[in-house]
């Protein structure tokens, strides 16, 4: 065995790329039509988030992409900006649907005027 690291189960989600610093609490579980995310999205989870959402976008070509965010407890401005940018890059007719986002996400979308992005949809936001 030359590469013993391959045999050791990696902690965290398979989608987490090696360039996120340790300690990211973001978890991504693929689901029909999208991905369910949980945890906190700060700078340690930026690339994990992008990888997970990009995978979901490629998984269902031509369709809306659903992000189930009911278990997300924090997200920062950069991460919300990344989601809006990815929504803007979808082919015409496709949308990125953010379901059950935390209150902080709505606050950031509104403050950064990201609600001008027509392909970014917010569904059933949470109060907390």
């Amino acid at each position, binding site marked *: 065995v030359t590469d013993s690291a391959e045999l050791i189960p990696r902690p965290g989600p398979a989608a987490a790329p090696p360039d996120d610093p340790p300690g990211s609490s973001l978890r991504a579980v693929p689901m029909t039509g999208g991905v369910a995310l949980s945890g906190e999205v*700060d700078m340690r989870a930026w690339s994990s988030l992008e990888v997970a959402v990009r995978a979901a976008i490629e998984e269902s070509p031509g369709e809306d992409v659903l992000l189930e965010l009911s278990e997300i407890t924090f997200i*920062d401005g950069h991460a919300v900006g990344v989601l809006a940018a990815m929504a803007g890059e979808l082919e015409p007719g496709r949308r990125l649907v953010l379901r059950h986002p935390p209150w902080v996400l709505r606050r950031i979308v509104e*403050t950064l005027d990201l609600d001008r992005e027509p392909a970014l949809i917010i569904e059933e936001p949470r109060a907390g």
Partner: protein
Amino acid sequence: VTEFDHPALLYGSLDHFLETMVPFVRAGVDNDEVVFVATRADNVDALHDELGTGAGAARLADTDQWYPHPAARLRAFHTFVTRELNAGAVRIRLAGEPVWRPEPPEFVREWQRYESVLNAVLEPFPATLLCLYDASRLDPSVLATAHQTHRTVHLDGQAVASAAFQEPDRLLSLWNPELAPPPPTAVRAHTVTDLAAARTFLAEHALTADVRPDRAMDLSVAANEILTNALIHADGPVALWAWTAEDRFVCQIEDQGPGVADPLAGYRPPPASREGERGLWLARQLVDLLQLVSADTGTAVRLHVRRG
């Protein structure tokens, strides 16, 4: 006229206010401009009565109710102008009265900084913004700043080019705050490399200090943005302090990074804001006051939210 025009009106009485504002609104309506005025409630009533049906589609608002916070007001004006121009307006005609309250001097200063920033932020747009100053009530030191933040000042019925005017980047540098060190009562966070722990530290201390839960959350989101910038750009350690100061809860983030050279950083609305500035814009919007002092040896950012 396609350029941005940003004069100030120093009115000495209600009559003087109406003498300027009635023709100002009527001319806008006659030119098919979009007209919006935010002024004190008593001025709104008087202007409304005087204009009668001549108000046309002009909108009047109570300045104490219409985004009465400098950063929010800046964003509201910018959103108003861009939305109306996108909807087909040829020119926008605005008048706005800053909200002068009996507040600590750094809060008053922030309105003055915002008055200066408007020169830069609305500069690309075909718009007029007439800023209203009640010369009969305001402190002479406040009136003096109107001459520094506006190229033209309407005084005693005459428009005069202001010799005291300074470009926003210059004026904001002159008006940079001097921040005393955190007081002895300040609590320092053990670690800030764990952002989740830093957010919890701030939210808990803010709640203990009777900050409303939604404002405690705003503060921790804002501080997270500043800490993120510091952790990305700073070489050395990053420090986080929190304390209470009378009716406010305050936190301060210090880094030893290369500093923020642009005095207007975080004042430009997205998407015009540069990469890396978006966090600072967000933070300025979310707290009651953000103060930033920067040198090439490091940066200190102080965030204030009201208690209760």
